[in-house]
């Protein structure tokens, strides 16, 4: 349908190409040829009118001729690479917390000298964001110097999102020529992960699963009563057993169960196989794993534990944050989880060792698990966050457990039972989780419709009994 238009346009395009600083702004004219049939009608009506002696038909032919003449002689709208249209975006919160909605107000200015009766805009919503209210598309008729404003709402998704140039079509009054171009404005929206702690998260220890940290069987300072023993010189006064003194007249010292802070590494499975979602619109398992990692991270830091962060399985990007304590660690973890490339909402291009043979791949993967093990200090527990949609995460958990690490698997469930095949895959996953539990590995099976806190509470009942 499109063909070269007038001389001006050609010259104009050449100028546009010469301008290298006008970053990738392209102007294309497109004849819609919507008036193509009208000239034919005009000739037909004029002929019939002349033959039949009907002045009305000749007049009707004149109407057709007017449209054909207008469409044939119209100039393209005066919007060019050197400007003409300008766009401004206003976000009511440029740094929202993931999950919030953000209103985007778009103002479109006509800086040309001419009236633009037909401006059609499609704003360049970043690919990772979902429009939840309104439309990023708008039609505006703009007088010289006028501004049109429209707005819509997007749901903030974790990560940094850059708005793309808005696609603009400017048409002449008859709609014959459509000039397509882009108008850009640098707008960025950075959605940070909310690091909200869940109430409490039992860690794997050697004794009872009572609330809190890792407990030891060694007596000493602490909260929970452990034993009494004879007083030794130098024992702190607040631990003297005064009841015993009153009853028996001799000094004794209370021993409490010693608690010490745990060291935990959160390992997020970001292999391609982990990018699974129950439906195309639902968040995928990596997104939920990252969300869970953020919550666990915050919960453990609040409790005074050392927490670290690692990604597993993206060949292009690897995230590693050594376990540590405190506010700085919290900030670092939040930054990394928000937009480290390893936690990209888009799956990696290729799987790890995708080009290798199956057995070789297994071997290299195992070596990676061993490397992870070597990297961690001896007493570090591992939280593995993975949907467990294939056999590998379970193998990884077992291997780490075999190296003597306490492993807890947090598994966002992306499966559904909508079709027989999917139901089969769902059951396979359930089997895998059952096997892990049988092997003594704790699993938090987190289904799509419950909160992480609830999933932990459910899992916890199992651990207590």
């Amino acid at each position, binding site marked *: 349908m499109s063909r070269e238009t007038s001389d001006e346009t050609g010259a104009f395009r050449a100028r546009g190409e010469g301008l290298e600083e006008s970053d990738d702004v392209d102007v294309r004219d497109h004849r819609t040829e*919507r*008036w193509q049939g009208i000239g034919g009608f005009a000739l037909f*009506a*004029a002929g019939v*009118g*002349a033959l*039949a*002696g*009907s002045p*009305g*038909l*000749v*007049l*009707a032919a004149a*109407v*057709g*001729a*007017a*449209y054909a*003449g*207008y469409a044939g*002689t119209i100039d393209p709208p005066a919007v060019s690479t050197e400007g003409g249209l300008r766009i401004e975006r206003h976000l009511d919160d440029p740094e929202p917390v993931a999950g919030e909605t953000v209103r985007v107000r778009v103002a479109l200015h006509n800086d040309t000298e001419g009236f633009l*009766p037909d401006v*059609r805009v*499609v704003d360049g*919503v970043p*690919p990772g964001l*979902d*429009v*939840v209210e309104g*439309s*990023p*598309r*708008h*039609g*505006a*008729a703009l007088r010289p110097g006028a501004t049109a404003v429209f707005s819509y709402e997007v749901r903030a*998704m974790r990560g940094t999102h850059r708005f793309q140039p808005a696609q603009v*079509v400017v*048409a002449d*009054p*008859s*709609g014959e020529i459509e000039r397509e171009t882009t108008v850009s404005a640098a707008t960025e929206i950075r959605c940070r992960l909310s690091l909200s702690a869940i109430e409490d998260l039992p860690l794997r220890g050697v004794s009872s699963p009572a609330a809190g940290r890792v407990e030891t069987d060694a007596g000493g300072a602490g909260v929970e009563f452990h034993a009494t023993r004879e007083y030794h010189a130098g024992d702190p006064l607040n631990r003297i057993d005064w009841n015993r003194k009153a009853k028996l007249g001799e000094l004794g010292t209370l021993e409490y169960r010693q608690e010490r802070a745990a060291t935990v590494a959160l390992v997020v499975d970001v292999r391609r*196989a982990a*990018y*699974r*979602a*129950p*439906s*195309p*619109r639902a968040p995928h398992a990596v997104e939920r794993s990252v969300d869970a990692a953020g919550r666990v991270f915050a919960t453990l830091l609040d409790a005074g534990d050392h927490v670290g962060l690692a990604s597993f399985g993206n060949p292009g990007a690897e995230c590693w944050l050594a376990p540590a304590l405190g506010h700085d660690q919290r900030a670092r973890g939040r930054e990394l989880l928000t937009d480290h490339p390893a936690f990209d909402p*888009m799956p990696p291009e290729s799987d790890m060792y995708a080009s290798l043979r199956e057995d070789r791949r297994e071997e290299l993967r195992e070596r990676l698990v061993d490397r992870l093990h070597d990297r961690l200090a001896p007493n570090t527990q591992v939280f593995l966050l993975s949907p467990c*949609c*294939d056999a590998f995460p379970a193998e990884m958990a077992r291997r780490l457990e075999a190296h003597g690490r306490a492993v807890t698997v947090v598994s966002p469930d*992306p499966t*559904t039972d909508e079709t027989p095949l*999917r139901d089969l*895959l769902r059951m*396979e*996953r359930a089997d895998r989780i059952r096997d892990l539990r049988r092997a003594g590995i704790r699993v938090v099976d987190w289904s799509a419709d419950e909160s992480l806190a609830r999933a932990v509470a459910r899992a916890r009942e199992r651990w207590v009994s």
Partner: protein
Amino acid sequence: MTPGTAPEPASRPPSGEEIDDAVDRSPARVSVLLSIGAALLALLVLPPAPAGLLGVPGTALLGVGALRGNRKHVTYGAAGVLLATTVAGVVGARPEVVLSAALLSVLAWDLGRYGITVGEQLGRAADTTRIEVAHATLTAGIGVAGAAVAYAAFLVTTGGQPVVVFALLLFGGFVVLATLR
């Protein structure tokens, strides 16, 4: 058994812009209404016989096409109304009647297709009222201007001259304008 393939591979995160069926791309309302309105007005203006035989089916086809987003149906429908107009002209309807019916059916044709275009490009959820009204007004303006010039020429020249003279006059004027360009 393929253990590596679980539910739905989420190849890309959900985004309203990416998933096409999320945008309702049916024709824009205002243009569709104006298009059907123009065709109905043309029917009212035309004498009953050609209007009934050719105009009514044409308008129906145009209406269905404009609502459903089918450009061909809009064009065939408008052609039906134009044919009715031509027949009316041949059987001797008044020039004003033929002129206004032709203008209205051309407008119906254009607005129906414009509504489809805007619907495709911007979708139903977008606010497109202003460009639709602007387009309808300006397009009507072009037609009315052309009709006014022709009608003025008609009033001035009709002193017994045959219609052929008038037709040639208009045609010549058009050719001159086209070459000036």
